């Protein structure tokens, strides 16, 4: 009976973490929306939005909010896919890039930029589309490589992803060697990521796939929990493994493809956000998945804030900021998990 009484405590730690993050996200959004060359105090933002007359209103609605919202969406998608991939691969060091989607998207974008010079007029819509298609194609290739007789071995999937990442990297390198200076700048944006291209139009364009993948991935928490025990045990607990793996990989590819198409490949958020939530609360996917959404969004907005303000008026690529902060964190994790990883 005592354990039943102590129980809510363990569960409330998850709820508390979710609640804290849920409160923190709007605050961080307001802070980021208010910061920049034209500063607005965060507490004034609701009033400015309400009155609609202040000249600040235009700055906020046409520049700041699209950018901050794109950071929220991209961060949420990357972190959620990261959490799902880590669960699927049963490996805390897995990254959404592992199934080839980021590399494929970057390759799609690079091919478009270099092979179709002068397509500038089309760039706004066609480039994200090419990146998206590249990401999905790469994932399909990885999946085809890893499946045999209707079954997919998760370890093979991971190795196929590594191989495809290397191949895409080499092809991007080839394209880079043939690129002009202007094309190079465009390419750099894709490989390092950034939210500078945000408009309401872009947000509307990514909304359908973003919402679909968020909704679909959040529903995977229970089978992911079962998979913690291993594939056989997940089957014994009623998880139909192959359909589940297909769903997880397809939705993660859709999520990462959407994020990369809109913002380039922003590194480390997909790896770090789920980890931070596990440290904050615990590994239960029912809480970890929504928690990663919130944490990923928060980290992404903060990274963009640093990218915009640290070297103002110049702007750093967001990917540089996330990697600068994320890499040491990753190394700390490696040291912490060295025993388990080395096994």
């Amino acid at each position, binding site marked *: 009976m005592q354990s039943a009484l102590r129980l809510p405590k363990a569960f409330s730690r998850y709820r508390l973490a979710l609640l804290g993050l849920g409160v923190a996200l709007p605050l961080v959004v307001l802070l980021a929306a208010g910061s920049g060359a034209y500063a607005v105090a965060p507490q004034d933002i609701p009033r400015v939005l309400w009155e609609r007359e202040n000249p600040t209103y235009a700055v906020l609605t046409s520049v700041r909010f699209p950018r901050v919202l794109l950071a929220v969406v991209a961060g949420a998608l990357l972190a959620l896919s990261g959490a799902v991939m880590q669960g699927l691969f049963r490996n805390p060091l897995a990254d959404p890039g592992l199934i080839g989607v980021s590399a494929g998207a970057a390759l799609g974008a690079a091919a478009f930029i270099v092979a179709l010079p002068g397509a500038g007029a089309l760039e706004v819509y066609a480039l994200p589309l090419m990146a998206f298609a590249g990401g999905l194609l790469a994932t399909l290739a990885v999946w085809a490589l890893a499946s045999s007789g209707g079954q997919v071995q998760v370890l093979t999937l991971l190795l196929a992803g590594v191989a495809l990442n290397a191949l895409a990297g080499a092809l991007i390198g080839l394209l880079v060697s043939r690129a002009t200076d202007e094309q190079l700048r465009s390419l750099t944006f894709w490989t390092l990521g950034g939210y500078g291209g945000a408009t309401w139009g872009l947000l509307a364009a990514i909304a359908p796939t973003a919402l679909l993948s968020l909704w679909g991935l959040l529903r995977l928490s229970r089978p992911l929990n079962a998979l*913690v025990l*291993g594939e056989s045990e997940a089957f014994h607990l009623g998880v139909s493994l192959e359909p589940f793996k297909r769903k997880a990989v397809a939705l993660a590819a859709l999520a990462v493809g959407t994020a990369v198409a809109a913002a380039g490949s922003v590194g480390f958020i997909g790896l770090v956000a789920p980890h931070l939530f*596990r440290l904050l609360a615990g590994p239960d996917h029912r809480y970890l998945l929504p928690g990663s959404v919130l944490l990923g969004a928060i980290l992404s907005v903060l990274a963009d804030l640093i990218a915009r303000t640290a070297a103002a008026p110049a702007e750093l690529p967001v990917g540089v900021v996330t990697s600068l902060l994320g890499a040491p964190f990753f190394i700390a994790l490696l040291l912490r998990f060295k025993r388990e990883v080395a096994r």
Partner: protein
Amino acid sequence: MLEARALSFRVGQRRLLGGVSFGLGAGEVLGVLGPNGAGKSTLLRLLSGEERPSSGEVRLLGKPLPAYAAAELALLRSVLTQRRDLGFPFTAYEVAFLGRLPHLERRPEHPRDHQATAHALGLAQAQALSHRKYPTLSGGEQSRVDLARVLAQEPRLLLLDEPTNHLDPRHQVEVLQLCRRLAREGWAVVAVLHDLNLAALFCDRVLLLHQGAAVALGTPHEVLEPERLERVYGLPFALTRHPSGRPWVMPLG
């Protein structure tokens, strides 16, 4: 409740199991015995539906296993395997609660699910471990938490692969007493066991496997004959009697 008909399983040219048949009713505990590599775990994988037999079939409640969806099957049978690694550091309670998963497919969580989990942890003598992280537990403690998980699943058929592994003598006896008690409540139990005497004490019938074939199936009294055991295990045995009247065998080294 469970019926195995001429089960065979091959991997390539190797026959891991050949022509094993038996039936199991509700309220019955069946022990599966045999030396290493006799096909005990393979048999359990076929019975659980994890692998499909190369020939023959398994029927559960009169319906062949492939006709069940994984989620339906999980409501009827639970499986204790020998796996002991966990992807992430869940607490013992969270691991046991995973047993409720099949019940949560179509409905939201209910306090009853937590009651069932707490009850299962109690039956497996693991309630004191609830808040410990599973990976920090000893082998025996992990076994008890895993047992709690398969009990929390509240199936009608329990498939146990060496449930007494890693346990001290007291917990070994308690696990098998628990199997008897669950059988009295109408569950059916299949347990792979290495200890012939524990099997003799607690099983209604035992199935003796050797090189993938069923050598004998019957009451412990009928199956545990010294000559047969010597043929199967390659070691002479002496037969005596446990105070309960059940057979008691001893290897003579």
